[in-house]
């Protein structure tokens, strides 16, 4: 199996889908000749031509709006929005139309749009380049929200998202873009919507997605040295949420810490925590804890590591659930 970075794995997934299905389209800002500012679309225009892989004007609302129309015309659009923070100019099209078109047409139209969104912080980016808007999209009925944590998952999930008949907001963790691992480039054939136990543990369960999965694995290794056994659950999809796996994993340990980069208030950890209250209350040995970004706008690059949940902050929360 080849050793690939997440960028290369995503590129392979796009190549696979463009080759497998000739109505797949890739478009966005700088995705053509440049191959994307992160090179995720590198070489695709050369290989599949300007008809199917093309640069758009600098207009996010336009990108999403035409994706809706292209989907209605029977195409399978895979637009890219260059950075998390620039999905906001497209929010109206995403929330008002992309999410609702199936319903507005009483099922006449599929919306097989996969919106790729380089997301989250941790790379010292300038303003608006490090946001974690997952809860906005998860809160919007009609959108699915998928977010891989490593190269292999990136490949599998992107292929599955593109095959899905519903709109998927595909949030790629920029801070994990360059981490390499062996990747099997055979589509797993699994649909989206399944969480994954990435590490088994018996004392408490860390629940995370995207970039915080790796952080939680670091925490679990650190805790192991102190004789504490932590499991790590990668949700992979926030919508649809794999509640069965979530409830079982947490029921096994009776303790959960949910971690995300997004601010705390109304972040997706609140949803996870509520599901645990509703579905696993009897097996909880401690109140569910959250470790999140602070309730502030994402700060400037120089201090972002004081914003993103650190190993220490997560360990403190682990201590709280163990000591309860």
């Amino acid at each position: 199996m080849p050793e690939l970075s997440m960028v290369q794995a995503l590129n392979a997934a796009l190549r696979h889908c463009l080759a497998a299905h000739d109505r797949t389209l890739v478009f966005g800002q700088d995705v053509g000749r440049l191959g994307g500012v992160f090179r995720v679309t590198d070489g695709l225009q050369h290989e599949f031509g300007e008809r199917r892989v093309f640069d758009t004007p600098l207009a996010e609302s336009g990108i999403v709006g035409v994706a809706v129309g292209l989907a209605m015309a029977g195409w399978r659009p895979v637009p890219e929005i260059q950075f998390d923070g620039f999905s906001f100019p497209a929010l109206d099209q995403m929330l008002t139309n992309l999410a609702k078109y199936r319903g507005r047409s009483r099922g006449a139209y599929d919306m097989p749009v996969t919106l790729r969104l380089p997301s989250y912080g941790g790379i010292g980016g300038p303003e608006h380049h490090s946001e974690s808007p997952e809860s906005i999209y998860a809160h919007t009925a009609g959108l699915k929200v998928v977010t891989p944590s490593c190269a292999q998952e990136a490949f599998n999930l992107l292929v599955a998202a593109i095959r899905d008949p519903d709109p998927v907001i595909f949030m790629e963790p920029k801070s994990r873009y360059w981490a390499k691992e062996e990747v099997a480039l055979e589509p797993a054939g699994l649909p989206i919507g399944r969480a994954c136990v990435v590490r088994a543990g018996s004392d408490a369960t860390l629940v995370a997605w995207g970039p915080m999965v790796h952080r939680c694995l670091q925490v679990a290794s650190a805790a192991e040295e102190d004789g504490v056994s932590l499991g790590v659950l990668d949700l992979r999809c926030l919508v649809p949420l794999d509640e069965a796996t979530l409830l079982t994993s947490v029921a096994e340990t009776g303790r959960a810490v949910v971690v995300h980069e997004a601010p705390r208030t109304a972040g997706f950890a609140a949803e996870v925590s509520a599901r645990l209250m509703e579905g696993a209350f009897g097996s909880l040995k401690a109140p569910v804890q959250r470790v999140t970004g602070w309730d502030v706008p994402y700060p400037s690059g120089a201090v972002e590591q004081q914003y993103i949940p650190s190993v220490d902050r997560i360990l403190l929360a682990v201590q709280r659930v163990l000591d309860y």
Partner: protein
Amino acid sequence: MDADRLRETYRLMLLARRYDEEAVRLQRQGELVAFPPMSGQEAAQVASVLALSPADMVFPSYRELGVAVGRGVDMTGYMLAFRGAWNGGLYDCRRNRFAPMASSVGSHLLHAVGWAMGARLDGRDEVAIVYFGEGATSEGDASEAFNFAGVFRAPVVFFCQNNGWAISVPAERQSAGEIWRRGEAFGFPGVRVDGGDAEAVFAATSAAAERARRGEGPTLIEALTHRFGPHSTADDDTRYRERAEVETARRNDPLGRLRARLAASGVPDSWFSDAEDEARLAVSELRASLAAAENPPAVEMFDFVYAAPPPALALQRSQLEELLGPDA
């Protein structure tokens, strides 16, 4: 432009060029995280802002070093934005009437229009100028800004620097039409100027500002210009543009053009070397002051979220303070 002002324009353009080159060096040395160079756009930036009065309000994008120099914005505070010290910049935006730099492309055109509407409501004869690239004109917000400005006859100057590229996307892909012509569609004049010609830029911007001050509403200026460098220090422009294009642009360097114009009018060589010395000194001062400048402490991320922090936020601040200990 009179002779004094022309020399002043050259002096500031040179200063902007040298700061720009220094910023690229500082980025390579790891002192800045990333920087979007504006070399090649000095005439468009400096000459336009010099056409305004100090009470007028400037709404810059991220590539407006030359405008900042023309406005007398504190360079250390300006550059600290690119060290990741504070989003939007650490200069005095109220004193310089120079808004925090906009990195969400196209979002600030509407702010300029709103500011101009406010000035008009107050009966003040102040003008807003907003700087943006040709790429920004594709955003819906840009069209909305043009339309509001037209309908409310807002005293605003839309200053578009068409440098031919939005990262890797050429101007032809932003618009099948010509940008300056959009003014007409929204009911106000549009003009196209050679953005490498400081005098032409100054004349066009002065006319637009005067028109706005007379209460006649907005003007759209499209200044044709070139960026010599990549989109930012993180970009590799050899992937998408021919070197010949850059070489041609450099041969038409706006700084060289103005120098030739001044020399022909009798400005002696010694004046140019003095200007160069002055710029060199300013650059070394900037380097020193950046090295000495401390970033705001991490806990400041909590301090400007609300006028008065809600209790839960104050608690989070103290949690971070505690975690960081004396480093907070």
